[in-house]
């Protein structure tokens, strides 16, 4: 009796509250709040949705040191693919002592960051060896490894992330995949979800007992399980998988999973990885002899976002809708690897996605692109403010989503990164009517750097002579001038790593402002209607072909290949010929 009451008292600690629940449509843009209440009493975190998740590589946000992670306020939810840790057995983070092991090991602050974990990197679309009957193939620095549901349960239990994605049998063998393969995938994914829910319920049971016996020990967090929606690009298969979540559990499972009545009862949210869907869609197209450009398979494009000219959101939306059609609308929907803000907007509009990963914005920083866009666009045109040149407008009349800072045009451009956002220092100088709303200030440490955060280190008793005046913690008045386009242009061409650190913080922050803009529109009295209009405006205003990314990739590869002998010579020739950007 005691045990049942404990289970009843331990609700999933990740909750999602859609706003205007009463008439929440199955599909359509929506606002919500994700709240994480950890059972051990550590800080409660809240995230307004739609919002973004920050992607990691080897557990770290690429290019960011821990102090930079902590001062980039847009970083609230960090997603950690676990496969890179499988180079050791057991994986090192599972050995980390203390509470919140995965936070602690990777340096995320439990009071600031929600950490989620999946076995695979959702952005890794490389061909992989086939998954087996009771394992999936994963990739680490030492090669391919196998991970079984049992291993996954024990790793996630040891690491104690806030959110876990159940193991999913997603084929990464070359598509197309047979119907039989897809059927297997559905069955295994659903069985593995059962496994992790069982493991969790046993853990809860054990906790309940131990807590009862020894109330002082810190109770590990109950894991929140997300499920990746299987079924590949077959509508029926996706529906079948969704239905399997809703089926009443058979007797044996019901007993083990009590009080859950269905698998879905134990699921905290639904995940959609677009990368394998795109691969399968593209294979489908090829099989009907319609070859799509730009879709490279077999190479993990970690650095360069896929310059993919076809906008496949409608197909993707249909597939996602097929999964969600009969599932409760009250659970969060997460998408990985959206490849443009346009696609993000469509997914939010057509499906009602709540969380989207920032991989696209982060990888833009890898190739030297500083994002510069805003939602909602005002009067259908970029809202350039102050004497700061906005993104290039292409012959199709649409503006770039950012600036390729490799481009020689930025060598003498001493303005801040984004024309669409002011920096904190210059906006401080403005008062009254010309003052800038907070939403139009880029708060990132690149555009609005602050000094003295958190405090200067002193190394001797006489160091106060050097740092006397401002050794106090950061004050708003301590804003410094923004880092400039010309400086980052210089850093990119000299191969300095600082370029990417500065760009990553900025790009995540711009995507965060974009999400905030979406929420602001949706909050209006006729929010949904307005939102549809603004999405059209945005699509008309900003270039979805992302030509600027292609150009940046060429420049990025150029500097990478030829830095050193003759690199600047080639550039000067290009400059002289006026072809610095043209291919």
């Amino acid at each position: 009796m005691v045990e049942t009451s404990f289970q009843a008292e331990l609700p999933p600690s990740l909750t999602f509250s859609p706003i205007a629940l009463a008439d929440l449509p199955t599909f359509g843009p929506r606002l919500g709040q994700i709240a994480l209440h950890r059972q051990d009493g550590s800080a409660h975190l809240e995230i307004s949705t739609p919002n973004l998740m920050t992607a990691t590589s080897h557990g770290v946000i690429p290019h960011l040191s821990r102090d930079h992670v902590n001062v980039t306020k847009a970083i609230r939810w960090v997603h950690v693919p676990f496969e890179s840790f499988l180079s050791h057995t057991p994986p090192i983070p599972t050995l980390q002592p203390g509470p919140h092991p995965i936070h602690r090991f990777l340096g995320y602050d439990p009071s600031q960051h929600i950490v989620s974990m999946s076995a695979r990197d959702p952005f890794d679309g490389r061909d992989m060896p086939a998954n087996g009957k009771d394992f999936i193939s994963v990739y680490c620095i030492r090669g391919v490894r196998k991970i079984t549901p049992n291993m996954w349960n024990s790793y996630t239990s040891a690491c104690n992330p806030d959110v876990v994605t159940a193991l999913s049998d997603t084929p990464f063998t070359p598509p197309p995949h047979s119907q039989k393969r897809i059927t297997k995938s559905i069955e295994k994914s659903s069985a593995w979800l059962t496994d992790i829910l069982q493991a969790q319920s046993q853990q809860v049971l054990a906790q309940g007992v131990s807590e009862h016996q020894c109330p002082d020990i810190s109770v590990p967090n109950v894991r929140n399980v997300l499920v990746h929606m299987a079924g590949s690009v077959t509508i029926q298969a996706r529906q079948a998988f969704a239905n399997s979540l809703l089926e009443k559990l058979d007797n044996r499972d019901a007993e083990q999973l009590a009080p859950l009545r269905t698998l879905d009862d134990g699921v905290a949210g639904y995940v959609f990885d677009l990368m394998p869907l795109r691969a399968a869609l593209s294979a489908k197209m090829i099989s009907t002899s319609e070859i799509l450009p730009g879709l490279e398979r077999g190479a993990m494009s970690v650095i360069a976002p896929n310059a993919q000219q076809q906008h496949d959101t409608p197909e993707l939306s249909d597939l996602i809708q097929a999964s969600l059609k009969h599932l409760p609308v009250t659970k969060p929907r997460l998408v990985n690897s959206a490849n443009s803000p346009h696609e993000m907007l469509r997914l939010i509009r057509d499906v009602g996605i709540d969380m989207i990963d920032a991989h696209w914005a982060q990888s833009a920083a890898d190739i030297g692109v500083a994002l510069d866009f805003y939602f909602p666009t005002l009067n259908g045109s970029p809202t350039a403010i102050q004497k700061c040149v906005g993104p290039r407008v292409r012959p199709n009349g649409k503006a770039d989503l950012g600036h390729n800072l490799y481009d020689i045009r930025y060598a003498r451009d001493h303005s801040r990164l984004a024309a669409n956002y002011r920096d904190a220092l210059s906006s401080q100088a403005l008062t009254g009517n010309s003052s800038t709303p907070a939403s139009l200030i880029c708060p990132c440490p690149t555009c609005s750097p602050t000094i003295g955060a958190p405090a200067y280190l002193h190394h001797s008793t006489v160091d106060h002579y050097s740092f006397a005046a401002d050794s106090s913690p950061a004050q708003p008045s301590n804003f410094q001038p923004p880092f400039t386009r010309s400086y980052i242009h210089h850093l990119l061409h000299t191969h300095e790593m600082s370029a990417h650190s500065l760009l990553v913080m900025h790009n995540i922050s711009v995507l965060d402002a974009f999400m905030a803009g979406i929420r602001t529109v949706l909050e209006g009295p006729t929010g949904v209607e307005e939102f549809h209009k603004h999405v059209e405006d945005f699509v008309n205003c900003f270039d979805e072909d992302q030509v600027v990314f292609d150009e940046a990739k060429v420049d990025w590869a150029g500097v990478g290949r030829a830095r050193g002998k003759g690199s600047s010579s080639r550039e000067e020739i290009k400059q002289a010929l006026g072809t610095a950007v043209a291919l």
Partner: protein
Amino acid sequence: MEFEILARCHTTNARVCHMKLPHGVTMLPTFIPVATQAAIKGLSAQQVEALGVSLILNSTYHLNLRPGTEILKEAGGAHRFQGWRHNLITDGGGFSLVSLNKSARVTEEGVLFASPSTGEPIMLTPEESMAIQHAIGSDIMTQLDDVVHTLSVGPRVSEAMWRTVRWLDRCIEHHQKSEKRESQSLFAIVHGGVDPHLRDQCLDEMIKRKDRVAGYAIGGLSSGEKGRTLIKQCADKLPADRPRYCTGVGFPEDLLVCVALGIDMADCVFPTRTARFGVALTFHGPLNIRLKKHAKDFCPIDESCPCPTCASGTSRAMLHHIVTVETAGAHALTQHNIVFQARLMGGARGAIMNGIFPTYLKKFFAEYYGQAGYPEWCVNALNSVGVDLLEGKPDAKVVPGDGAQWEYSDTA
């Protein structure tokens, strides 16, 4: 520049000085991290100052090639360009030219070299070096010098030394005529190779020009045991009321010996470069984080270290996982190593202020070399200023050569 000696070591030639420059006060002795291309590798200016660093070095040669003086002037100087609010020092360009550009040829006019971009011949004259450093706006500028290989002997060394003196005059003249003569300070560079007589002559000439020189760099002695006795010779002779800057010194043991010999500042890429190769500096010797033995070690590099890496609890195991794989691994070790050097020198300042510098030296060497044995040259160099590292340690091991203890890779 305002320069004031706050304290002297009662035994060695070490001293604590207050050096006031247009961008604030830098307390000496100090180590100068190197930001060759206007960035400490991977960090932002705000991150660097948060480490308690108040003086960094930019490369005149590199910034002249990129972004170039026009862009620097437009941006308002290198400080504004890189967002750095504290003091900045630039080298004269001679060393980088000769070490990086194989085609460089020295004439009386200046250094002739092929532009790395166009291959065209370019002449870097002393006047041009001053003009570039004026565009950069560094608080401390360094004269263009005629650099010969460290261990060179023969007439070329003497020629280079005398030419460096003549170039100093041209630098002084150009600088004195410029409107920047008040805001930027010029340092001379003492040369003369490893020949004590030449060094002496060079010192005499440069000290003659003391009224128009804000400080003295000592060039060409960054390595080799013989260098250390010459550093002492230079430091002994240089005027006490001018800062003394030893170029290219960055190993911890080297830094402390230099401080004991009377050196006030030194720069080197060592701590930041070694960080990128996965080495963390500690008071118990360098750690090669790539070694397997760190894979399951959940302790930080140094429990007592206040750097952002150690203070946030980054474990050796975590660093092992990402170092040389993710740039963030390099950033973490770079922050740590810069703080290590700053603690080392801060510790020296504190010890000198408190009159316990000889004890500080003994403690450092005992911990840093532990069982491995004291490098003989350190023992000798410190003996020359009255500190006997072996005092009361009859069993101490002394090893010839550099004696630095490096952890080599096992299978990493």
